[in-house]
């Protein structure tokens, strides 16, 4: 409420300022351009004001100036009617000037009526062209990814959902950046409560700069203090479309090639869109492998440290000889060994991320192999542990969603710490903390751990496994959509008798 009143005050203050004053402020920029022209037909002078760097001069020169100069146009209203351009409107509102000028509009004023302005859209669009997704690359399937332009992104989505129920609500967020943010949902399918929550949160944002959708994730998330992401982000239009069809909402941010989806669950962060493009048996198998890989990645190093430090009795005799021989020469206790290797891997990762591609790859390989082999030879680490750490690093890369893979990277360290403290018991307690934390998380008000807990058997068809499409006739329960039935189940499941 307070915010609302503050905004109103600022608006009131703005209207006090006259056009001249605004002009003085804008004039400080070199790309401010104000030119006078004379209409040939009726000798009236009019002024074109625009920001040069934001305006496409081809449009100004070819589409705007000729009719303005040559045709019988005497007032701003006639500009609106007679000019062959689609994006024109007339206004008397002085506050619009700053807003529109800086969005690439050209302001036309006739000198004899300086209080009326016409705004003509002529924005320059520079941006990438549509390329294939970098992070969510799939071998089969469409290879279109979002780009930074809001309009282009919405175009890609609307292309795939050509229905009137797809609503796109616009918000302008950020004092300085005035970023255009668009909320997408399918009316009649998505739960109204979720829409309301998002609308409320978006309109309450009080930040000056929003450069990317990940800023939004951090601001409007339910629990900002959790290392787990609560909104899914994707750069694939087909994934967004699939989520919208399920009953989720999508948030597109101008300037960001990542679109946010909510509400999400833990299991979705381990689903790649490619699962839907493959046969369901393969997809389920791959999903299970992914889950196993992630668990393995988090647990294996702490288990090694715990067992080698405290629980030698657990090791079967044959393995015991291998482990003891591998640890014979190492001067450090297992925890230091493990920390040393983990930190090395993190260094490799960070360094590899900063270097340009050509150099980065070589350093990665050389660093990995050389460091690894050399440290075993020097007796700083054991080869068994090196294998485990390398495998776990590899396994952590199987997470399809980048934000989640970062989370998994750090999760390992509390477990290591607890393993060093109390062995297997410590790992169990750390697991207890992790579990509780996950249970307390919500995504846009919905529990994060569904369908594992609260236990919804029906939702398992798309969480841990991926059952065939004809079994997925109902939308996920946790979304509480208004239209749970997606398509007719009987038709999909109809079977014929033998030789019929």
């Amino acid at each position, binding site marked *: 409420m307070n915010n609302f009143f503050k905004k109103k005050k600022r608006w009131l203050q703005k209207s006090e300022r006259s056009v001249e004053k605004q002009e003085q402020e804008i004039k400080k920029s070199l790309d401010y351009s104000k030119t006078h022209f004379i209409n040939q037909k009726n000798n009236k002078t009019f002024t074109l004001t625009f920001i040069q760097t934001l305006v496409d001069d081809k449009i100004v020169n070819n589409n705007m100036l000729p009719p303005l100069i040559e045709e019988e146009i005497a007032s701003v209203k006639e500009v609106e009617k007679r000019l062959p351009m689609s994006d024109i409107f007339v206004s008397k509102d002085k506050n619009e000037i700053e807003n529109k000028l800086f969005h690439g509009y050209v302001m036309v004023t006739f000198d004899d009526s300086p209080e009326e302005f016409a705004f003509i859209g002529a924005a320059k669009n520079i941006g990438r062209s549509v390329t294939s997704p970098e992070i969510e690359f799939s071998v089969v399937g469409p290879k279109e990814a979002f780009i930074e332009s809001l309009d282009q992104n919405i175009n890609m989505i609307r292309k795939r959902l050509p229905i009137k129920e797809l609503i796109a609500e616009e918000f302008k967020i950020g004092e300085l950046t005035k970023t255009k943010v668009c909320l997408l949902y399918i009316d009649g399918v998505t739960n109204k409560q979720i829409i309301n929550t998002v609308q409320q949160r978006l309109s309450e944002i009080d930040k000056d700069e929003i450069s990317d959708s990940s800023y939004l994730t951090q601001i409007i998330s339910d629990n900002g*203090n959790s290392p787990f992401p609560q909104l899914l982000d994707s750069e694939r239009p087909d994934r967004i479309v699939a989520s919208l069809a399920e009953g989720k909402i999508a948030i597109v941010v101008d300037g960001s090639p990542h679109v946010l989806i909510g509400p999400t669950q833990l299991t979705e962060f381990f689903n790649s869109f490619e699962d839907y493009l493959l046969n369901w048996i393969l997809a389920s198998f791959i999903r299970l492998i992914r889950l196993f890989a992630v668990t393995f990645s988090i647990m294996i190093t702490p288990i090694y440290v715990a067992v080698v430090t405290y629980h030698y*009795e657990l090791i079967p*005799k044959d393995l*015991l*000889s291998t482990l003891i021989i591998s*640890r*014979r020469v190492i001067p450090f206790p297992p925890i230091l060994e493990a920390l040393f290797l983990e930190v090395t891997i993190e260094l490799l990762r960070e360094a590899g991320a900063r270097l340009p591609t050509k150099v980065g790859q070589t350093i990665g390989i050389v660093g990995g192999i050389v460091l690894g082999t050399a440290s075993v030879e020097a007796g700083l680490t054991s080869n068994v542990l090196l294998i485990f750490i390398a495998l776990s690093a590899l396994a952590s890369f199987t997470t399809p969603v980048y934000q989640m893979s970062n989370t998994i990277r750090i999760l390992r360290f509390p477990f290591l710490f607890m393993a060093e403290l109390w062995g297997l018991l410590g790992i169990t307690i750390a697991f207890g903390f992790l579990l509780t934390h996950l249970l307390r998380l919500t995504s846009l008000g919905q529990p994060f751990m569904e369908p594992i807990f609260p236990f919804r058997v029906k939702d398992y068809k798309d969480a841990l496994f991926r059952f065939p499409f004809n079994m997925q006739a109902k939308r996920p329960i946790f979304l509480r959509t208004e239209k749970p039935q997606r398509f007719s189940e009987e038709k999909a499941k109809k079977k014929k008798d033998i030789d019929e």
Partner: protein
Amino acid sequence: MKKYFFIPLLLFTVLLAGCINKKIIDDVNITTGIGIDKEGEQYLGSAMIPVYNPDKSIENFIFTAKGTVVRDLMFQMQQTSSQPIVGGSLDVTLFDETVAREGIPHVLDVFLRDPSVGARVHLAVVDGKAKDIFEGKYGDRGNGRYLAELIESNYKTGNLPLTNLHQFLHDYYQKGKDPVLPYLRQTRPDLVNIAGLALFKGEKVVDVLDENKLFYFKLMVDYYSEGALKIKDEHGESFIKSIHSTYNFKVKNRNPYKFSVSLEVDGMLTEHTGKSLEKGEIKRIEKQMEKQIKKECLALLERFQENKIDPVGIGHFIKTQTRNFDIKKWEESYQNASFDVDAKVKIVEVGVIE
């Protein structure tokens, strides 16, 4: 705000943590075998530790100590060791015959009370000194493993009944049953032989069964025994390997007690020294085997009666059939019990030739 309070509190708790005893695997001496011998009036204890060499070979190192109480022996050994001696991965415990005949209750108490000793530890009685057995070099996985596997594989496919620590304790505490342990003998510096079965009365050894009697004993104690037996008849010798066996006790009479023991064996003929098998030959071998089993099993049961021991568990069996069982009365009546052994042999396979 409270949420932020958790993390420093956790760190605080944790940093204060006194460490719990670490047992880093290469910083401890992992005992795989313990031996208890009698030397004069004192016990001689030996602990066998595998030493892992970088070239993947395993040597055995032996700590010894003399004392009167078992725990004292351990403590003394610790005084000569640079690393803590731990017994979590213990494989075998050997007793020499003198100790075993005198009784091993205190040793058992040590095993029972210490939770770090596993239940699959193998116990055995040795002919000679346990320390001497440890000083040999058997197999390439360390002596402890060799001995443990010797006993285990002979249980799985040989004539030994199940005898690990758990089974020993189970039989020891079971009313109406007496425990048994393998009887080992070193035949070469690199080989140990299972020479028989040591029969206990309570915690003392009173008798040792010879190895050729083991098959019959196992028939009466274990199901599915896979032992092997040599049959001799006028046509030559045959070697039968048992695939499957069952035993059944029945009470025929109560005063005095009369038991009938019925044994069934399905066997496989693995060797035959006579000519090729004629039609009735298999039947004859079966009959001969049945005769042998009857005779030997009955002899064993009567031998146990004489020695007042009950390793087969007749006492336990009769307890399960009697209400308000009185162990004292049974022990008196055991002497007058009589047995009726019946055997049925079926040779199911004869190999791939006739």
